[in-house]
């Protein structure tokens, strides 16, 4: 556009200035969001959840065909390995039958001992099983969106499991959607222990698929193959929930291979163990509702 007269030229300059100004204010707004998000997390959380609540139904409808396609592909792939799977499962079944006998025996023994000690059991958990509607990919955050929220009783800090293994914990709850922070996320810290030696540690994600064991006492002697379970410290998760196995120990840093496979998660279970927990935001969240 060539300015034909002075007035037009001035108009064009003004327009350019306005554009520059808008551009700069948008950049400043982005920085402002980052700073506010760092300072006041609850405000940003409410904003986030308002939007993901609105998007949850859309995601659910849009991705249903996608998951059907994935199911069909999986079905075809499974046909190929049917024979080997069957043989493996028979063998495993035989082994598990033996374990079942052992477990029954131990269970009765345990109950007898509990009754002798007047042991107060942990409260019975309640479950909500829900669909994963968003596996939010990306190199920087490991999280998933669920299509249940506070209306269904999901609360912040609750454990999320798939089958019997730990997936992560609820990090944000909206009315109809919730975000799960996976074990591998850089912001995930879980109190765990080695199942064999009962040595305590904190499982810290670092955005790789092998989270590391921090604060493990040096004489704990973690070795590859050791099972890692929740320790129950902090009162958020009950003790003994399986997480993974130690995959490597290098330079005193033990890394854990989680049992959960992120790509296979289609349905997960949010578990309320009725433990109050030490998460301060849990109470704050409840306070807002009353």
């Amino acid at each position, binding site marked *: 556009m060539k300015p034909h007269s002075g007035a037009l030229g001035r108009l064009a300059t003004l327009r350019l200035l306005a554009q520059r100004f808008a551009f700069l204010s*948008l950049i400043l707004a982005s*920085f402002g969001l980052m700073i506010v998000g760092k300072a006041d997390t609850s405000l940003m959380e409410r904003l986030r959840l308002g939007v993901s609540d609105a998007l949850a139904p859309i995601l659910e409808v*849009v991705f249903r065909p996608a998951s059907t396609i994935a199911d069909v592909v999986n079905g075809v792939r499974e046909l190929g390995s049917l024979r080997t799977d069957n043989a493996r499962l028979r063998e495993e079944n035989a082994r598990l039958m033996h374990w079942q006998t052992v477990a029954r025996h131990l269970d009765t023994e345990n109950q007898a001992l509990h009754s002798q000690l007047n042991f107060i059991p942990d409260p019975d958990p309640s479950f909500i099983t829900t669909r994963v509607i968003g596996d939010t990919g990306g190199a920087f955050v490991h999280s998933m969106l669920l299509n249940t929220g506070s209306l269904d009783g999901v609360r912040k800090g609750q454990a999320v499991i798939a089958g019997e293994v730990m997936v992560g914990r609820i990090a944000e709850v909206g009315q109809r959607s919730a975000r799960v922070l996976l074990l591998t996320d850089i912001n995930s810290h879980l109190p765990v222990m080695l199942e064999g030696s009962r040595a305590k540690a904190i499982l810290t994600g670092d955005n790789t698929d092998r989270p590391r064991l921090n604060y493990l006492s040096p004489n704990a002697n973690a070795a590859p193959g050791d099972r890692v379970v929740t320790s129950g410290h902090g009162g958020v998760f009950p003790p003994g929930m399986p997480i993974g196995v130690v995959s490597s120990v290098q330079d005193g840093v033990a890394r854990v291979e989680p049992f959960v496979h992120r790509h296979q998660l289609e349905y997960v279970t949010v578990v309320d163990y009725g433990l109050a927990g030490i998460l301060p935001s849990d109470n704050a969240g409840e306070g807002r509702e009353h």
Partner: protein
Amino acid sequence: MDLWVRHLLPVGLTLALVLMGAMPTHLPGFAEISPQLPLIGVYYWAIYRPELLPASMAFVIGLMNDILLGTPLGVSSLIYILVQGMTMSQRRFFLGKPFMVAWCCFAMVAAGAILLEWALVSMLYDHVVPLTPAVFELLMSVAVYPIFSWLFGRTHAAMLRAE
């Protein structure tokens, strides 16, 4: 009559890419290295139709991306605004150039964007997040660029025919 619908297409398609980024693919190992799809949309439309995807829309798209993915709010917004502004200011260079030029430049722009994202996220988390997944994210984004560029190209051609 449906002029405004056509004019919403660039923003709409780019928002659709944001949603696609949150799709559970159930592919092993894919989630960590899934491409930055909205970046392709922001870049493409900044070259060919900057007035239909202005900086303000890039900001909104970035906001949606952060909200859906769970990255700290403002990170994607800043990156998309910068990509939009930078690309738009150089758009004359691209017009009439072969596809390879746009592709190579996208690789450079995406490298800068993802590196900046990595630095910002590391700063906001007070932790250095690993760079390797970011590099894979970049490679994936560059690899899928031709597909989406082609799709956008077809859309753009249809838009021009209708106008």
